């Protein structure tokens, strides 16, 4: 079956779970004078500890002629920092057992790692070097550039992913729908001075968030973070954005066996007071194998292998993105059935559907507590979205308070009705009238 679990926790990150497990995370917040926020969740139940460092250095800051600069900068950051060259840096992290990962989103660059508990502080020491004192060696620029170009090419061979990337670009005004990959033309034009300028302008404590979860001593981590980041100079703050309409075409021609269908419609972001209503409505649509899309499109009609909808949330905007991949001759029917379910959602959800969803939410919350890296990421994202950690009681209360009536009231006021769609395959498909 191998069905992806699409319930959206990866996107919004729940701060906490029922009390039987957790310390109250809100107590573990430490603000540095320069703006960096440390959010922690110590727990003796683990052998590991994980961290997630968010820096406001996402691709929204790329000038169009430099599309891909945020990504190239992130790539260059690990090629030597402090007094370690690139090789020594990676080797030392590996000897500490750090499983690491970096990524660049629209608004932030994210540096994360998890390791056995005793290696946490030495790892953070290295990461302070990485974000504050990268060497950005000019003689490695070509290698870094080549890595970025390879990634860009790789996306071309994953039609489903490519479609959804392009749909995001079309749905949101630029820069909000960007992918960090940029363009080959821009990447080829970038010089090491561009990378240095981007680092100087965007990497700093102002707006930076460090989430730490797992087995660690809170006071010790506060002291270390103060020592490692306390004198990090504040970077200039320029968040001005000029929004430009996204792309307007609706079909990408591609010699694939399957037709890939993407549909988007408006929703509300994580920090909106009615987020939980919006999010659970999407859960009824696409969470678990008894959800509407899975059941109507795949189980009852056998139209496709993959179909899902997910609520994608940024801080100030959000949308539901829906995907289905199917063979060309059944693509029109797949589109029609999927679309019908999206519209039908506006008519409301039932008590039974909500009860199942709550059961899944409850177990998801508890399962998330069993992964330190999931927790560290959630803490940091929670702080970014809300400017605080949502206390345990609040989340539990919000979930408990959900009723079919409250969700349906939201859906009645905000029915899915204006859709943006895109297809990728040999032939374009016919969209219903409500689709642009």
């Amino acid at each position, binding site marked *: 079956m191998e069905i992806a679990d699409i319930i959206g926790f990866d996107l919004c990150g729940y701060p906490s779970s029922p009390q039987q497990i957790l310390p109250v995370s809100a107590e573990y917040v430490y603000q540095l004078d320069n703006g960096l926020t440390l959010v922690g969740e110590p727990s003796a139940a683990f052998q590991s500890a994980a961290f997630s460092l968010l820096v406001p250095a996402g691709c929204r800051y790329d000038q169009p002629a430099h599309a891909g600069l945020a990504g190239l900068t992130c790539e260059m950051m690990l090629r030597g920092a402090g007094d370690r060259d690139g090789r020594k840096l990676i080797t030392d992290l590996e000897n500490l057992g750090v499983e690491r990962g970096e990524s660049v989103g629209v608004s932030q660059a994210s540096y994360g790692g998890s390791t056995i508990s005793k290696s946490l502080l030495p790892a953070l020491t290295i990461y302070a070097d990485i974000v504050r004192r990268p060497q950005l060696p000019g003689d490695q620029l070509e290698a870094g550039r080549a890595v970025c170009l*390879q990634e860009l090419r790789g996306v071309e061979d994953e039609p489903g992913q490519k479609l959804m990337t392009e749909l995001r670009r079309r749905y949101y005004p630029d820069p909000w729908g960007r992918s960090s990959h940029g363009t080959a033309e821009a990447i080829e034009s970038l010089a090491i001075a561009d990378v240095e300028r981007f680092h100087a302008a965007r990497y700093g404590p102002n707006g930076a968030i460090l989430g730490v979860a797992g087995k660690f001593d809170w006071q010790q981590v506060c002291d270390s973070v103060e020592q490692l980041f306390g004198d990090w100079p504040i970077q200039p703050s320029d968040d001005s954005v000029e929004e430009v309409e996204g792309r307007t075409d609706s079909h990408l021609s591609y010699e694939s066996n399957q037709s890939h269908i993407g549909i988007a419609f408006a929703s509300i972001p994580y920090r909106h007071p009615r987020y939980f209503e919006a999010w659970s409505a999407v859960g009824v649509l696409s969470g678990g194998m008894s*959800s509407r899309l*899975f059941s109507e499109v795949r189980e009852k009609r056998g139209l496709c292998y993959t179909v899902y909808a997910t609520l994608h949330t940024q801080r100030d905007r959000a949308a539901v993105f829906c995907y289905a991949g199917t063979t060309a001759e059944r693509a029109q029917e797949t589109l029609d059935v999927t679309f019908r379910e999206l519209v039908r959602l506006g008519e409301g959800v039932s008590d039974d559907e909500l009860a199942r969803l709550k059961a899944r939410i409850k177990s998801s919350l508890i399962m998330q507590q069993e992964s330190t890296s999931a927790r560290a990421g959630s803490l940091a994202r929670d702080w970014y979205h809300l400017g605080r950690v949502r206390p345990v009681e609040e989340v539990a209360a919000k979930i408990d308070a959900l009723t079919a009536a409250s969700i349906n009231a939201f859906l009645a006021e905000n029915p899915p009705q204006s859709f943006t769609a895109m297809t990728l395959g040999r032939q374009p498909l016919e969209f219903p009238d409500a689709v642009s």
Partner: protein
Amino acid sequence: MQFRSHRLANGLEIVAECNPAAHTMGVGFFVRTGSRDEATELAGISHFLEHMAFKGTPRRSAEDVNREFDEIGAHYNAFTSEESTVYYASLLPEYQSHALDILADIMRPSLRESDFEMEKKVIVEEIQMYLDQPPYGMDDRIKQLCFGSHPIANSVIGSEASVTALVPEQMLHYHRDRYSADNLFIAAAGNVDFDALVTQAEQLCGEWEPTGASRATPPVVMEPAVEVKPHAVSTQQYVLLLRDAPAAEHADRFAAKLLTTIVGDDSGSRMYWDLVDSGLVESASLGHYEYQGLGMFYTWLACEPDDMVDNLSRLQQLFEAVERSGIGDEELAQAKNKLKARVVLGNERPRSRLFNVGGNWLQRREYRSLTDDLESVDSVTVADIMSVLEKFPLSKHATVTVGPLESVGDLA
């Protein structure tokens, strides 16, 4: 943390790593059957049967199965490989009994003809999806090229033609023969009530018949053949290299894993520094996979088509260098540090422990604690690794490449 096991009179085994401190649990049925157990005309039937298990039983409709799993908030799924089919769920301990009831029930599915034809369509879509992502279909091709008629080379998903030709009666027979009491077992990990698990398994599965199902494990002959498959739509060129390696039963498997970590891990390995860090390739890695009676060293590489021949030549030099000059103590120490941290990190969740407990039982009918694995990693020496390399030199392998290239000259 306590390991417990029990065997019912009909041969069905129940194994669990019980951890009362955990907040969740994982439980699953592990069936000792997969594509290597399929006759030619049955290609794809194990995977198809895995789909059909969710389509209903005498006690439950397909909708009931999905709805009930969702009602207890379970995260559930199933997968099929060359030699196993696994159905599992992660859940809160209070739902253990309900989860086992559903899982045991779907081990005895109705296999109704209308569902059979409907689900065929879903599998055809799954096949088409893989065909659009060219390197995926190639893993089947390279197994055939490398291992010839050995059953391990059978395709897990089958082909559109083989799956379309299947009829329900074939599946009924296959199910009867392979899903027997002595050819599957229940594994669990986390906050498990083991006594209750055994009592319920006795009620639900106690009447299941054993069949004495077995598996052919012919000797392995590796053929270092080369094949180029043109795929004009691709942007990148993909390369797979395959050869045999230490098997699941063999103690050498830990040395094999350290060897692949040193040579081909996706970060900090020799291949990483030579090919990935330099941007010569999009990705390159080497892994060790273990099966009953054989293992595989599997190399994967993606790069720009024009650079492929040069990259493969670099890779070959790298393999020859490690065979010729061996590995250093520092490299080994680094790989051990990395692997041990991975073992710890990868086993904190009951769900991960479920696959560890189930996997060890599947392969060796043994229980291995986290500490056992850490000690096994620690005890590997440079000499152990060189001995693996001598038996299974990385420089000898089958090669398949797919992408825009029509031909690639002499790659052998």
